[in-house]
């Protein structure tokens, strides 16, 4: 018998069910790491993020200059595609790390790059700071997590539209205008506290002012160039966001309190790791979000014996993801069950941490 399609909204019956099952704000499994070692791994530094930020901005300027130079020729198509991939595709992990405020030790650097990345992703800073906090509280808990990319059965059309951000991006543009006049949805109110609503309204108005300035510049120049350069990479450069993002959780378990079961760690090449800021160590990130991106490989070494086998490559991850998506179309109850290693000898203080399996 086919299971009924679940309601993934944050205000539907699954929300109550998550609370009743103890899944909302639950106690998540953590691999045992001695406090002394964890303190070393948590230490912040400006240098790794600064080096990467300088390289990122240099690439944005370089590819942007190439795109402007090729404007009007057919070379403009690959040039803008490359520029969009750098400015928007690589913005996702910068948005993420700076949103956690772990990328830089200096907080204003985190905050400024967070705002910059939000603009080039069409993610409202306040909305996404809070939605991501909820994503970490209730990772892939149906009815609680607002950042589930696709439900079971998968929304194929939605995934295709997300390649070029035609779902979330267009929705954000609409929401910015609603937020600018103070209209906040009930779902947003579920995870954004009232004290933060004024920030949402102010930022929406600032974004509209920036958009208006870009459009005005285009009119003055009588050219689409400013719009294509500053308001459209959020669409044509978005494919990389989905490319990396799909490896994180899709096809794995939902409604569990163990990131080893609902999250992937994927070994990636150095170019991908630069573009993705080491977020391929995603189990590690979710289990210990206070560890900055540059320490995730070391954290991985620390806990890998207590985790399922990592995926050896992006290709290997996708060899699982795509067949799983198509199988879930026919069998919505199917998910990939990660094989956990035998329980590691736990440190005494970690012995009371429990894993709660799905029903």
């Amino acid at each position, binding site marked *: 018998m086919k299971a009924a399609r679940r309601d993934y909204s944050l205000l539907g019956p699954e929300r109550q069910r998550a609370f009743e099952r103890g899944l909302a704000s639950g106690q998540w499994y953590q691999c045992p790491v001695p406090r002394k070692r964890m*303190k070393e791994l948590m230490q912040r530094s400006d240098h790794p993020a600064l080096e990467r930020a300088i390289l990122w901005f240099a690439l944005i300027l370089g590819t942007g200059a190439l795109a402007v130079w090729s404007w009007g020729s057919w070379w403009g198509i690959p040039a803008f595609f490359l520029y969009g991939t750098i400015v928007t595709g690589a913005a996702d992990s910068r948005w993420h790390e700076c949103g956690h405020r772990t990328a830089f030790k200096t907080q204003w650097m985190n905050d400024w790059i967070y705002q910059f990345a939000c603009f080039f992703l069409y993610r409202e800073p306040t909305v996404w*700071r809070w939605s991501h906090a909820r994503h970490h*509280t209730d990772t892939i808990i149906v009815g609680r997590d607002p950042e589930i990319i696709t439900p079971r059965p998968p929304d194929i059309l939605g995934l295709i539209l997300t390649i070029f951000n035609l779902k979330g991006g267009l929705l954000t543009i609409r929401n910015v205008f609603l937020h600018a006049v103070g209209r906040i949805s009930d779902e947003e109110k579920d995870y954004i506290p009232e004290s933060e609503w004024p920030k949402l309204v102010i930022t929406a108005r600032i974004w509209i002012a920036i958009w208006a300035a870009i459009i005005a510049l285009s009119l003055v120049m009588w050219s689409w160039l400013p719009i294509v350069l500053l308001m459209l990479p959020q669409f044509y450069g978005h494919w990389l966001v989905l490319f990396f993002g799909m490896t994180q959780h899709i096809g794995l378990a939902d409604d569990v309190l163990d990131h080893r079961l609902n999250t992937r760690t994927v070994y990636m090449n150095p170019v991908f790791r630069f573009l993705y800021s080491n977020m391929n160590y995603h189990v590690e990130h979710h289990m210990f979000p*206070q560890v900055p991106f540059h320490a995730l490989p070391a954290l991985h070494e620390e806990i890998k014996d207590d985790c399922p086998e990592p995926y050896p490559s992006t290709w290997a991850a996708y060899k699982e993801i795509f067949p799983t998506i198509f199988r879930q179309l026919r069998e919505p109850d199917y998910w990939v069950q990660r094989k956990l290693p035998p329980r590691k000898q736990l440190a005494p203080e970690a012995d009371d941490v429990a894993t709660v399996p799905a029903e």
Partner: protein
Amino acid sequence: MSWVRVCGADEIDEEDVIRFDHGGRTFAVYRSPENEYYATDGLCTHEKVHLADGLVMDDIIECPKHNGRFNYKTGEAKGAPVCINLRTYPVKVEADTVYIDID
């Protein structure tokens, strides 16, 4: 005043925090880089996570779950995702022993 013994002064590393449970309540007790001691409620005001698992940086404690930050000397919440201040408690050190006033 209700002073309760927490631990020996050397049992907390410099620029670190420990968890202290007493009477069904949980506290976080800090030793600053200046070798001063402070105490706050033990759970983050955002999602009730133990702050003692977090990172102490100068006068800041960062929650291990969502990276919310507080000034542990004043209890001040330093911005999203923490919006509610932490309660702080008086601390004294006598004969190399740390006490907090939990009233």
